[in-house]
C-alpha cells in the first residue's frame, strides 16, 4: 500500500508540474521554426549511417554464428528429427538469402537515395508486372515449403501401432515427471486422477488387469531403434513434454491424453562422443570449474563435473518451479534396456509392499 501511495504522489506531482508549465507556456510568443526538420546535412549523415547499419546487421550475424554456433542443439537423436533438421536447413537457407538480400536493398536504397536539395524524386506509382513478379515468387516458393512441411508433419504425427511401439506414459505434475511403462502386455492400465491414493501417485486403476504389470519410474530409459509411443497426461495444470534432442514436444493436458511417437537412433553414450557435445560439455565444465574456484574461496563445496544426458523439460509455464521441472532420459541398447526394466518393480509389486 505504501508503494501505491508513493506512485500516486509521483503522479500528482507530475500533474502539478504539467499545470505550472502550461502557465509559463501561455506567456510565450509563437514563432515558426524549421530547424527540427531534416536538413541536407542530416539527410547525408543518416544516409551514411543507414549504410553503416546494414553492415552492423551483417557483422552481428557473423559474430553470432562464429561465437555461438556451438550452443545449438546437436544432431538429432531420433529418426524423424533428421527430417525436421533437413526441412529446417532448407527453410533457414531460404530465409537467410531472402533476408540478406531484402535488407540490403532496403538500407542501400536508404543510403543511395538520401535527400539532396533540388533533386527530383521519380513519380512512380505502379508497375503491375513488378508486383506480379513479387507475388508469384513467394507463392511458388511457399507452395514448395508448404508441401514439403506438410509431408514431414503428417509423417511425424501419423501415430499408429502397426510396428508395435513401446508404450510409455509421461505423467506431469507440479513440478516433476513420472514415466509409466506398459509392461509385458505393452498396454497401459486405465488411470484417472480421482484414483490417486497413497503410493498410487498416478491414479492407476488397480483393478484393471492391464495395470498390474505397469512400471512407474522417474527416469526415462529408451531402447535404441525401437519406436516409442508416448501417452501424455497431466495431473494439475498444462505442462509440455519437450525433448529437444529428439525434436519432440507435446503438451500434457489435464482431462485428456495426448500422444507423440519417435524412434531413438543414438544412445546416450554415442551422443556423448559427438564432437559437438564434447565441445559443449568441455565449455560447460570449464565454466563450472571457474565457479567452483569461487565457491571454494567461500568455503563451499565445489560443483561436480558435468556429463551430458538427454533431458525431458517442461515447456509450458506451470508455476514457480517450472524452470526446474525436468527428467533424465537414457537411450541404451536393447540388452541394457531389458536388464534395467527387469529390475524395476511392477505396480502390483509396489502396491503389495
Amino acid at each position: 500500500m505504501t508503494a501505491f501511495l508513493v506512485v500516486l504522489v509521483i503522479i500528482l506531482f507530475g500533474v502539478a508540474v504539467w499545470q505550472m508549465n502550461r502557465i509559463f507556456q501561455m506567456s510565450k510568443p509563437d514563432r515558426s521554426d524549421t530547424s527540427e526538420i531534416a536538413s541536407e546535412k542530416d539527410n547525408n549523415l543518416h544516409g551514411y549511417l543507414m549504410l553503416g547499419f546494414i553492415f552492423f546487421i551483417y557483422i552481428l550475424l557473423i559474430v553470432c554464428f562464429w561465437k555461438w554456433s556451438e550452443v545449438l542443439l546437436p544432431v538429432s537423436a531420433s529418426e524423424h528429427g533428421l527430417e525436421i533438421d533437413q526441412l529446417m536447413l532448407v527453410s533457414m537457407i531460404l530465409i537467410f538469402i531472402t533476408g540478406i538480400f531484402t535488407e540490403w536493398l532496403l538500407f542501400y536504397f536508404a543510403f543511395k537515395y538520401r535527400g539532396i536539395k533540388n533533386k527530383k524524386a521519380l513519380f512512380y506509382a505502379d508497375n503491375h508486372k513488378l508486383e506480379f513478379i513479387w507475388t508469384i515468387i513467394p507463392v511458388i516458393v511457399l507452395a514448395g515449403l508448404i508441401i514439403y512441411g506438410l509431408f514431414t508433419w503428417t509423417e511425424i504425427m501419423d501415430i499408429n501401432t502397426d510396428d508395435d511401439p513401446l508404450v510409455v506414459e509421461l505423467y506431469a505434475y507440479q513440478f516433476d515427471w513420472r514415466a509409466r511403462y506398459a509392461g509385458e502386455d505393452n498396454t497401459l492400465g486405465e488411470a484417472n486422477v480421482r484414483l490417486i491414493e497413497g503410493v498410487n501417485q498416478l491414479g492407476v486403476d488397480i483393478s484393471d488387469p492391464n495395470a498390474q504389470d505397469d512400471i512407474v519410474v522417474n527416469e526415462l530409459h529408451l531402447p535404441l531403434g525401437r519406436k516409442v509411443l508416448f501417452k501424455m497426461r497431466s495431473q494439475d495444470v498444462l505442462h509440455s513434454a519437450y525433448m529437444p534432442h529428439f525434436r519432440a514436444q507435446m503438451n500434457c493436458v489435464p482431462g485428456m491424453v495426448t500422444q507423440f511417437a519417435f524412434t531413438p537412433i543414438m544412445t546416450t553414450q554415442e551422443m556423448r562422443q559427438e564432437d559437438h557435445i564434447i565441445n559443449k560439455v568441455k565449455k560447460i565444465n570449464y565454466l563450472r570449474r571457474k565457479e567452483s574456484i569461487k565457491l571454494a574461496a567461500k568455503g563451499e563445496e565445489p560443483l561436480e563435473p558435468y556429463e551430458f544426458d538427454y533431458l525431458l523439460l517442461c515447456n509450458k509455464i506451470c508455476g514457480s518451479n517450472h524452470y526446474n521441472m525436468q527428467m533424465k532420459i537414457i537411450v541404451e541398447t536393447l540388452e541394457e534396456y531389458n536388464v534395467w526394466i527387469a529390475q524395476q518393480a511392477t505396480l502390483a509389486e509396489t502396491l503389495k509392499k
Partner: protein
Amino acid sequence: MSEQANDHEVDHHDDHGHHHKETFITKYVFSQDHKMISRQYLITGLFMGVIGIAMSMLFRLQLAWPDKQFTVYEIFLGKWGEDGVMDPNIYLALVTIHGTIMVFFVLTAGLSGTFSNLLIPLQIGARDMASGFLNMLSYWLFFLSSVIMVLSLFVEAGPASSGWTIYPPLSALPQAIPGSGTGMTLWLVSMAIFIASSLLAALNYIVTVINLRTKGMSMTRLPLTIWSFFITAIIGVVSFPVLLSAVLMLIMDRSFGTSFFLSDIYIAGEVLHNQGGSPVLFEHLFWFLGHPEVYIVILPAMGIVSEIMATNSRKPIFGYRAMIASILAIAFLSTIVWGHHMFVTGMNPFLGSVFTFTTLLIAIPSAVKAFNWITTLWKGNLQMNTAMLFSIGFVSTFISGGLTGIILGDSALDINVHDTYFVVAHFHLVMGISALYGLFAGIYHWFSKMFEGRMLNKNLGYVHFWITAIGAYGVFFPMHFIGMAGLPRRYYTNTNFPYFDDLADINVVITLFALFAAVGQLVFMYNFIHSIFYGKKGPKNPWKSTTLEWTAKVKHIHGNWDGPIPHVHRWSYDYSKMNKDRSDYVIPGQDYIPQDIPLQENEDELQN
C-alpha cells in the same frame, strides 16, 4: 447521400463551436474532442509502456545474472525481492504483466487508439468522430482498465502470473500459483473493461470512416493510414468479443464452479470436482483473438509507415491498390490462422496441417508489402526525418522478424522451437519492435499536429533512433540462438541444471543491449515531455505532406477547420508529380500537391 450528411454536420458543428464555453473538465478530462482523446490515449499508453519496459529490465537482469543480488529488486519488488533475490513467482508475474501491458495497453490502445483518434477525422475531412461521447467513454474505460491493471500489481499474493496467454488451469487455480488469486481476478476484470473500450472505439472508427468522409474522398483516395485503421477496427470487432467470452467463462470457472476449461484435476492433495472441461477450448478461444491481435497491433503501424515513407521519399507509395489488397488479405487470413499457436497442444494433427497452410499464405501479402515499401524508397529523394528513420527501421525488423515466422508457422518445424526463446525473438522483432517503431514514427511525424505546432527535437530523435535500432537487433538477434539451443521461455533461471550453462554469456549480451536500448527510451521520454512545453513551433505543414490534416488549424479548435471542410480532388500520394511537358512539378517549385487542390490544367489525370 454522404454529402448531405456532411453538410448537416458542418452546420451543427459550427453552431456548436460558438456557443459552448469549455471548462477545464470538459476540455482536458472528459473531453469529447478526438484530438484531446488521442493525446489522452498516447500519454496513458506511454505511461503503461514505461511500466512494461521497466519490468522487462528487471527480468532481464535476473536472466543475465541469476546468482547476483540486486538491491533494485528490493526497491521495486519489495517482499518479492528481499535481499536482492528475485522470487520465482514474481519473475513469472513480471513476464506476464510485461506481455499484457505491451500488447494490449501500449501497442493496441497506445498505438491504434492514439492515431486512429487523431488521424481518422483529420485525414478524411471530418469535424470529429461519429460519436464523440462513445469516443470519450471508450477512453475512460481504457483508463479504468489501466488503473485496475496497475492496481493488481499491489495485491497481497502478487499480480497475475500465468503468462499473458493466461492458460487455465494455471490461471484458474490459486493453489497452482499465488498470482491466480486476487491478482488474476483483477487481470480478468481489467481485460473485460479493456475489451469493452476497444469495441466502442472500433465501432466508432468504422462508422466514421464509412460515413463522414468529406466530398471527393472516395475509398480509393484514402491515405493508407485510414485504410489500416479501418481494417484494424473491423478485425477488432470480429475477434475481441471472442476473448471476452473466454474471459467470462474463465471468471465463471474461477468463481462460480463451472467447468468450461477444467477437468480431472488433482492439486494440493485433493481432487477438484470439475469434469468435462477442456483447456484446449480456452486456447482456441484465446488465440481466435490472440492471433488477429498481433495484426491489430501491426496494421496501424504499417499504415503509419506507408504514409511517412511516401511523404519523406517525396514519392507516391508504390502500388497503392496492392497495399490495400494486401491489408485486406492479411486481415482475412489473420482470422483463420490461430491454430498455429497450438500445433503441439494435442489438437488434431489434421487441423495442424490446415493451419500451416493458411499461416504460410500470410507470407505472400506480407512480401508484397515489404517489396512495395522498398520500391517506394527507390529513386526517391529521402528526407531523413526521425519518423522516416523509424519507418525504415520498421521495414527492416518486419522483414527479419517475419522471415522466422516461416519456421514457426511450419507445424513440423514448430515442434522443436515451440515455446522456446526462438518464438520470443520472432514475435518481439516482427510485432513488438516493429509496432513500437510504428508508434515512434507516428509520434515524431504527428507530434506537431497533436501539440499545436510544437515539434520534437530532431537531434534527440536521431539519438533515440540509433540507440533503439542497435539495441533491438542486439537483443533479439542473439535470442534466436538460445532458442535454437532448446531453451524454453519463461524459465526463472536456466542455470538450475548444467545443460544450458553455456548460454550465460549470451544472456549477458542480450541484457546489456536491453539496458542500452532502455537508456535510449529515456532520451525519448525527456524529448517528449520537454517538447510538449518547450518544443519549437514549426511550420503548419512541416513535412510538406499532401494529406488533409495539415490543412487544419494548428491551434486545436473543436471542428478542426475554421471555415468549411476542404473538399478532396485527388489521392493522397501526389508527390513529385510532373506536369504534362515534364518541365516542372505540377505546381511549379512545389513537389507535392495537397489533396484539396483541384486537378490542374497542365496535369495528367491518373486513375486516382
